């Protein structure tokens, strides 16, 4: 069972590494969006500090969502998704493998870039730390929940926009507490604890429920 998980995980990572531009585009999108806001809103230090957590989180959300379309679409088109549905292994496990690959390729780089971007927004060190931690816990949740939407909208025209419409409401709790944690850290680091606890709870919930929902959605989409 573990060998199949590893097989799919390595396969997805290998494939992404052979088409590195796709991964880079997501990261650059994140950087561009984050850079646009100060240009539009103003570069005052105080304004940036207030905006920073929210803007960075929203940009992370959008970047993560952009990459979601590719989660299942390529496999759907060449028939490998069908084969995945027909293995003797539990589908949830394989979905988890794909979500893990998605996170390693999209979420983790965002976490790595976050401190740099945080500096652009004049965030203090405590906030930078909180940015990294909150994204580290929160971005896997985005990958997992996003998988449900990607599975439901497989092969549809206008899939990308429809995917955003379906998924963004579901992302709200992660956004509220993720950005909230960073904001609060600028007042008192100790207050961030309940935020992180909630984010961790979301992660656990997503780990257990999202693959099941995604598997159901895949079976529905592949009929």
């Amino acid at each position, binding site marked *: 069972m573990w060998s*199949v998980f590893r097989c799919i995980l390595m*396969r997805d990572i290998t494939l992404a590494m052979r088409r590195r531009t796709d991964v880079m585009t997501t990261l650059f999108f994140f950087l561009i969006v984050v850079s646009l806001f100060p240009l539009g809103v103003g570069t005052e230090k105080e304004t940036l500090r207030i905006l920073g957590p929210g803007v960075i989180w929203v940009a992370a959300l959008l970047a993560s969502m952009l990459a979601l379309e590719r989660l299942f679409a390529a496999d759907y088109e*060449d028939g*490998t998704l069908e*084969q995945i549905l*027909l293995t003797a*292994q539990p589908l949830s496990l394989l979905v988890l493998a794909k979500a893990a690959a998605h996170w390693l390729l999209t979420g983790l780089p965002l976490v790595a870039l976050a401190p740099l971007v945080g500096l652009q927004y004049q965030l203090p060190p405590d906030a930078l730390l909180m940015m990294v931690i909150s994204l580290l816990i929160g971005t896997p949740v985005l990958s997992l929940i996003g998988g449900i939407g990607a599975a439901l909208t497989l092969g549809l025209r206008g899939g990308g926009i429809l995917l955003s419409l379906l998924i963004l409401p579901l992302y709200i709790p992660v956004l509220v507490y993720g950005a909230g944690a960073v904001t609060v850290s600028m007042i008192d680091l100790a207050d961030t604890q309940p935020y992180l606890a909630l984010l961790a709870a979301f992660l656990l919930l997503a780990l257990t429920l999202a693959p099941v929902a995604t598997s159901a959605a895949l*079976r529905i989409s*592949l009929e």
Partner: protein
Amino acid sequence: MLDVVNLECRRGDRRLFSDLSFSLSRGTLLHVRGRNGSGKTTLLRALCGLLARETGEIRWRGEDISSLGDDYRRDMLYFGHLNGIKSDLNGIENLRVATTLDGDPVVEDDLWYALAQMGLAGFEDLPTKVLSQGQKKRVALARLVLSGAPLWILDEPFSALDLDAVDLLGGLIAEHVAAGGLVVLTTHQEVPLTSGQIQRLHLGT
């Protein structure tokens, strides 16, 4: 071993076929024929368990396939219209993934052997996107060499193959049936068997 009882399938709002029943025992090949649009692919996908059926039952070794779930899929191999291989991976990598998904206990040497059997010696480490259509199909079909599943469900496996490959595949299928396996097949050509029986099913009449 495979029993179908009163199967009815729809595609969208069209009813493709209804009251379809047949039984297959070991060492049988079922040749499904019919015009385009008569529901051949739908039938095969239903047999895989990919389609939720309207009515009817599909039983494998006496039990309904929906309750068997993973156990049924372990015994079954499906080959559809799409090759099911990634163009950015080479032949060996593709075959490795396919055999891991199929759950066949293979070692590295087996993968090279299988590809060589399919006439791809020397092409194994090229990314499949540079191979021709026929070669891609050979890579995809290499799974059959290593598969331990008793039931093969193949949808138009001979398309895009040259004469050599047609012979190869025909040989693989014949061997499988002779060893007591079952094959459900749609194709426009005849498949000669060395032993075992051929049942024919015509859809759309």
